[in-house]
């Protein structure tokens, strides 16, 4: 079902397909944690084309490949590559797809991964293209919800920059497949775009909009915080005021159900106070570690090692 396919956007996958990826990831979790050893990807070579640095994503893919006996080649910035000499992305992809079993691409331009897929002889995994898609992040977010609080019908607060944060857009569309109830919590200038809300409602999602995290705290199974970027605010004091009001602290969580989990794609800046880390709600480090089994699952499925 997956061998030879590209992973560009989670919106191209059905719920069954996503479920399958998540189930395979679950089977591989002991290998991701190093509790069990296997060489499922022995002899497989993955090329990492990171046209902009993203250390965490790259290391997570490398861990996924190497834990299963696979190898990686590639670059983590364009400075030392032929792209710096003016080579096109198309040519770089044509050349490297002759070396490797799959390409993992991170690029500053939206649509770069889809373009790369057209020139590649092997599967392409989009590891983030500009403000575009980052499907492995969405999959690991879904995996976290599935493991930590249940995915079907989850009641989730999406908090922070819902306007520009494409990661949170992809996640919202994916969650719609699972009949999630969504609480969109953002400052007025960073609200979820209207066309996305319309799409979600048409997909049958119950959408609530709010400006107050406190207000929805007691209503949800999961709180998904995102970073509010300083660049979005021309006025630094306005940024301070807005960002401050969406900062989660341990005392705020006293109003949450003891089972409510807190997620964040990391890196965090000020969105979550350090005192949340030691509460039973924190799941963002687990979430980050789940990137490895999810990426293992994709590497195994695309290469046909697992059906």
């Amino acid at each position, binding site marked *: 079902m997956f061998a030879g396919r590209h992973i560009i956007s989670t919106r191209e996958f059905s719920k069954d397909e996503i479920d399958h990826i998540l189930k395979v990831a679950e089977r591989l979790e002991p290998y991701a944690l190093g509790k069990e050893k296997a060489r499922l990807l022995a002899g497989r070579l993955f090329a990492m084309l990171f046209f902009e640095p993203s250390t965490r994503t790259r290391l997570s893919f490398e861990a996924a490949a190497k834990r299963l006996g696979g190898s990686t080649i590639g670059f983590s910035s364009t400075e030392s590559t032929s792209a710096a000499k003016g080579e096109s992305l198309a040519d770089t992809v044509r050349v490297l797809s002759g070396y490797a079993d799959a390409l993992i691409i991170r690029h500053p*331009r*939206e649509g770069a991964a889809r*373009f790369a897929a057209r020139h590649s002889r092997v599967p392409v995994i989009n590891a983030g293209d500009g403000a575009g898609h980052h499907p492995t992040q969405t999959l690991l977010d879904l995996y976290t919800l599935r493991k930590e609080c249940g995915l079907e019908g989850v009641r989730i607060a999406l908090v922070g920059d819902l306007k520009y944060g494409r990661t949170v857009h992809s996640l919202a569309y994916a969650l719609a497949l699972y009949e999630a109830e969504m609480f969109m919590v953002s400052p007025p200038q960073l609200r979820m775009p209207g066309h996305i809300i319309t799409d979600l409602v048409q997909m049958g999602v119950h959408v609530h909009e709010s400006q107050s995290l406190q207000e929805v705290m007691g209503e949800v199974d999961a709180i998904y915080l995102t970073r509010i970027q300083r660049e979005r605010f021309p006025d630094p004091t306005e940024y301070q005021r807005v960002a401050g009001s969406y900062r989660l602290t341990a005392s705020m969580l006293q109003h949450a159900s003891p089972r409510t989990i807190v997620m964040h794609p990391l890196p965090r800046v000020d969105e979550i106070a350090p005192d949340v880390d030691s509460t039973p709600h924190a799941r963002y480090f687990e979430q980050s570690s789940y990137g490895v089994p999810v990426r293992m699952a994709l590497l195994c499925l695309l290469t046909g090692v697992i059906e």
Partner: protein
Amino acid sequence: MSGAVHELKVKRIESGTVIDHIPPGQALNVLKILGIGGGSDAVVSMVMNVESCKGPGRKDIVKIENRELAPSELDQIALIAPDATVNIIRDYTVVEKHKVVLPKMAVGVLRCANPNCISNTSEPIASEFVVESTHPVVVRCVYCERKLSGNLADHLL
């Protein structure tokens, strides 16, 4: 009014293609999409801002002599002239008449409005849009997924 007069103008070419019911002011953009410009040797005439015989408002008409354009070439003009009709003329007679049909894809015609889109780079890439709706015309970039709507003539390459 001048229904008969412009009817006459339309019929005046001996053979070729007449594109009628183009929104006023879009005749030049129609030629641009068809790739008929200064460099081509086609004999082209235009009628701009004439009253439409089909009802209120005005329209443009484009006549291309001695060339019968194929529907596949013409359908892209539906992006900016969704109600255009095409008349194929032979020996002063209309031998074929049809409306343009908006294609499912628009390739190499429009520029994506997203400056950070991979299609707006020096990569060997043709812009590519999926037509999502026809009235009004809404298209979506296959690369960055940004939508274009409204006056698509503003986004011609």
